[in-house]
């Protein structure tokens, strides 16, 4: 049952991702991405990582993608023209993607040390908190500082320099 559901939602996820690329209207692409996020959340849930699944929905589908849709609505982005892309992309991109996929699959099949059964992943919030706030405390804090820097950068970019405002007022 778990395996069937896992495969079904895996297919939904891939279908959403392909649809994201094929759709010509940005808002349809954004909604396909929401479907991908939702399907990924279900995959996490099936693996037993319930907290990650919930956070995936709340943060990615519920906040970040809403902002994506918001920006698309605000800019009133229209339909895009379908092009066939450059020839280099076809010649190098497709074989490259296949090669990377095969490589990842091969590496996963070779290395079976980290495997657990479906639904047995230590995904309880308490387990996750142990890992995050004890074992990986430093990376966690470093990431938070990175995010802080990004926020400050956004504020600096969004705030108009005072000199510009003053010159406008003088005019």
């Amino acid at each position: 049952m778990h395996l069937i559901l896992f495969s079904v939602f895996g297919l939904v996820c891939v279908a959403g991702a392909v649809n994201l690329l094929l759709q010509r209207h940005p808002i349809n692409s954004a909604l396909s991405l929401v479907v991908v996020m939702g399907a990924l959340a279900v995959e996490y849930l099936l693996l037993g990582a319930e907290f990650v699944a919930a956070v995936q929905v709340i943060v990615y589908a519920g906040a970040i993608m809403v902002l994506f849709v918001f920006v698309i609505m605000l800019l009133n982005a229209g339909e895009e023209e379908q092009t066939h892309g450059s020839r280099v992309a076809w010649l190098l991109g497709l074989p490259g993607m296949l090669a990377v996929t095969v490589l990842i699959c091969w590496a996963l099949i070779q290395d079976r040390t980290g495997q657990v059964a479906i639904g047995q992943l230590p995904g309880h919030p308490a387990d996750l908190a142990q890992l995050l706030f004890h074992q990986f405390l430093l990376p966690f804090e470093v990431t938070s500082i990175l995010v802080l820097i990004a926020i400050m950068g956004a504020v600096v970019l969004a705030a108009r320099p005072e000199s510009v405002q003053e010159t406008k007022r003088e005019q």
Partner: protein
Amino acid sequence: MPIALYIIVSVIKIALILFVLLTAVAYTVWLERKVVGRMQNRWGPTRVGPFGLLQPAADGVKFLFKEDLTPPHVYKPLYIAAPMIAVIFAVTSIAVIPFGNKITIAGYDIPLQITDVNIGLLVVLGITSLGVYGVALSGWSSNSKYSLLGGLRASAQMVSYEIALGLSLVGVLILAGTFSLRGIVDAQAGHFWGFIPNWFIFRGGQIIAFFIYLTAAYAETNRIPFDLPEAETELVAGYHTEYSAMKFAMFFMAEYANMITVACLASLLFLGGWRGPLFGPPIVQELLPLFWFALRVFVFLFVYIWVRGTLPRFRYDQLMAFGWKFLLPLAIANLVVTALVVGLWPGA
């Protein structure tokens, strides 16, 4: 419990709870019209049935038989999908909300809840955070300036207030030590100082969190004084300007179902859920928790309507400043203080 029986019991529970929820949605509309009417020195609905009690049924019939207009300028797939998205997410979140203790029928324990998941609170927050798509997409796909402005306002407002809403609940989670809604209610059992119930609203300064939660929830459900997405004085009807008949009704169903979810969550997290004095014969004792829970939900819905009848609408910049510069810092301060109190005096 055998799997077949489990499925049958679940289906019965889902049907019952959906019926109760949708009836409650219809009668919350009636209650709102009646209460706001009295507050404004009017009668509210009086014509259909005694006290206008059959008005929701009449409205339902009217919505079903009105012409379902689709304006020619809309983006059809999303225009049709948006009300469905809104109503589906509004109704789904009721699935993890517990209404009372377990009851025992024929030797089987049946929890009064569709499904008990140990991340219940996160599930509710996740599902309600998806509800914004219904509003945002209806605004965009209607292809009209009023709808678009309403949709834009809704998405900005809901994303902003979701942060304060989520943070206000972390204090309760720290005190309870679990994400399970049933576990949170169980953590509020008993009394302290002999007579004050052990509800989270009375403990560790959570009364602040309670007010942050209620305020942010009003903004999340687009209710007055935060109903800028449908501000009728400036945007006609905001995001649902172009909708008619049942599609229009679906937005209302979503709004009132969301209000009921907010009321349920507030009762569970801050007011001890279904706890209350039990007395009388055994059958009454089994049903009293349901009554206490319904009473709390009713009080919250009444406060919703009361606020609507009292407060004027915010201006948009006031709304954003209030959310980001007042509610969010307050929620963070409350979180830090609660964490410190629990860390320093673990038994308190």
